[in-house]
């Protein structure tokens, strides 16, 4: 496939693997966190880990949009769908995130007791506006989730709805911010105070950075002395970024570098940023699954657009709900533990029956390892060649 296959080329990958192996120092270990679920997915799906030297370890970060959604937020959406009878629209993976009482939006769609949620999967916020126009007598709520990538389309939809005078459309805003989460991880006791989790650098977000640019990372690269390399979501992008990180570490640099120059600039997409700031403002605090309350890490709809804010419109209050006590999603999202370290991984918690959010999306660390890599947990090895 044109324009994409070039970034998945096995021959180029071999060359890069050799180059990385030549550059790493055998006297030390390297730990890099790939922040985004998109990177986690690419690493698992293409088997990037198999091409890295043994002393380079990738730590999966919290950048999976559905993984960081706390139970309480899903419960809010659930209440809207089941108790208020709205048409609830949201992006695909969100349907499977576990909520309270063993429920999920997917289960609410099928029916809970004598109630049945009208819950629809959409590909774009344009689809939601269409649903609202086609159902003028119903209330339509978009359950908006995601990082800076999915925020501008939500802002555009709200602006469009205001221009059209759509009265039956509102947004349950759960948009979160990347830089705040990275800072929070660096401040976490395991990484900061105790130093039990060594992070030598970050593979920085791809799509998020197309919007916010590389500038927002400069501050903490300098402050925390951690190199950041912004990388695309294709496997060669990830490998090239790892090579750049190894170099920075070896040379004692801690800079923001941009591997994803084909899409990301230092300033990002100014038009999108303006649109977002017209519609949204910072929330003083937001609960992330795994990270807990993180100050100024999420967005809410500005007061002037209150009619489009489902939280205000339906007087919703947030009730925090603790995760299943056996679930290690929190530690996994902070990079402190690996999926295999969790007692319920692959036993009680599977993609069919996810207990924690990391098992929900294929971008989540647990689901990625379960789906693509769990054969590594068993001693069975196959080295038969397939004859072409």
């Amino acid at each position, binding site marked *: 496939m044109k324009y*994409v296959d070039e970034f998945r080329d096995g021959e180029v990958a071999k060359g890069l693997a050799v180059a990385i192996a030549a550059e790493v120092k055998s006297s030390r270990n390297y730990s890099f966190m790939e922040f985004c*679920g*998109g990177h986690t997915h690419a690493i*698992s799906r293409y088997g990037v880990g198999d091409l890295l030297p043994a002393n380079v370890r990738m730590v999966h970060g919290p950048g999976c949009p559905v993984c960081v959604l706390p139970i309480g937020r899903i419960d809010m959406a659930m209440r809207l769908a089941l108790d208020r009878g709205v048409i609830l629209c949201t992006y*695909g993976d969100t349907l499977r995130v576990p909520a309270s009482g063993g429920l999920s939006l997917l289960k609410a769609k099928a029916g809970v007791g004598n109630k049945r949620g009208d819950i629809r999967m959409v590909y774009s916020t344009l689809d939601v506006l269409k649903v609202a126009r086609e159902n003028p007598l119903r209330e339509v709520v978009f359950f908006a989730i995601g990082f800076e*990538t999915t925020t501008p389309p939500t802002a555009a939809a709200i602006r469009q709805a205001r221009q059209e005078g759509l009265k039956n459309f509102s947004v349950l805003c759960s948009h979160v911010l990347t830089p705040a989460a990275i800072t929070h991880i660096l401040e976490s006791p395991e990484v900061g105070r105790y130093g039990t989790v060594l992070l030598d650098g970050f593979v920085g977000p791809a799509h998020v950075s197309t919007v916010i640019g590389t500038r927002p990372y400069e501050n903490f690269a300098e402050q925390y002395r951690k190199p950041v390399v912004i990388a695309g979501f294709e496997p060669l992008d990830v490998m090239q970024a790892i090579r750049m990180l190894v170099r920075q570490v070896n040379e004692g640099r801690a800079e923001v570098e941009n591997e994803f120059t084909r899409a990301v600039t230092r300033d990002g997409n100014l038009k999108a940023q303006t649109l977002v700031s017209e519609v949204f403002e910072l929330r003083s605090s937001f609960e992330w699954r795994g990270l807990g309350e993180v100050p100024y890490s999420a967005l809410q709809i500005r007061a002037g657009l209150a009619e489009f804010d489902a939280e205000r419109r339906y007087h919703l209050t947030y009730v925090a709900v603790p995760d299943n006590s056996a679930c290690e999603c929190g530690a996994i999202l902070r990079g402190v533990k690996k999926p295999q370290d969790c007692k319920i991984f692959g036993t009680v918690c*599977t993609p069919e029956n996810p207990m924690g959010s990391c098992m929900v999306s294929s971008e989540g660390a647990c689901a990625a390892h379960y789906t693509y890599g769990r054969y590594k947990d068993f001693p069975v090895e*196959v080295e038969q060649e*397939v004859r072409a």
Partner: protein
Amino acid sequence: MSGVRMNYARPLDFKQGRVDMSHGSGGRAMLQLIEELFAAAFANQYLAQGNDGAVLPPSAGRLVMATDAHVVSPLFFPGGDIGCLAIHGTINDVAVMGAQPLWIAASFILEEGFPLGDLKRIVDSMAVAAREAGVAVVTGDTKVVEQGNADGVFITTTGVGVVAEGVLLSGDRARPGNAILVSGALGDHGMAIMSKRENLSFDAPIVSDTAALHGLIATLLATGADLRVLRDPTRGGLATTLNEIARQSGVGMLLEESAIPVKPVVAAACEFLGLDPLYVANEGKLVAVCAAADAERLIAAMRAHPLGRDAALIGTVHEDVHHFVQMKTSFGGRRIVDWLSGEQLPRIC
């Protein structure tokens, strides 16, 4: 003399007419629908018996029976429609057991208000597909449900075929060392449907691969090769089919990603929608597991057939108590090709 004509009924209006509740009520309207549409399209001596069941001649050999419900939306898609799909799907389920498909029973659930013209198109398409495949639709049933209780037309077909002496195909017969073949490029049907649903248009539209595979299968059986398993990777795609076989046979598999044929346009559409072509449905492709020594011979036989031109050897069977289907990625790494969990939902970011 009176002008009354005996048993006169105005012919069905295939231009403007619609299915109404009377077409399923067992009265004259239903009789008319059966006679003017179904009996006329499927015409054969068994249907002409006009009974509730068809009496069929005895057949030499073991019988194979398979049934398949068809609920596809949209009903008409590039490369086919629910009608020919309902015939092909059931023929293929019978044929992958090594059988010659002979007879089909078809039952229709029609939604009140469905245009008779569309129904005729569908039934005619079924009749053509059955005739081309040399099978007869020998009995059937029609029910009508109120508007909103179905999605246009649902068709369930049941097929019966006969397996020749000595032919033994089953999902539990894959053995370590066997080779895994596919008859052509994967994901065409599912992506033809998806791109129609999502209004994706390409320079070269994606066309469903819906086809009856018993001819191709007969040529493979005629080679005398040691064929162990045949399956048509429909819903859930290649990945699901291989996981089913691995579990049934108690073996593991190792695939070579670069050997798996996928058309560039299908790969592109999958990329857009966040789907993996290995999990996308096919309706005219074959997965074969065979003795490694016979793989080349079978690939040659497939490639000589119009439905197998892009046949390829994609992997091998090995011992694995965990029954993992693994794949060497074109990128140079290794991963599991797992069972699908839930629906294939698009990722967000």
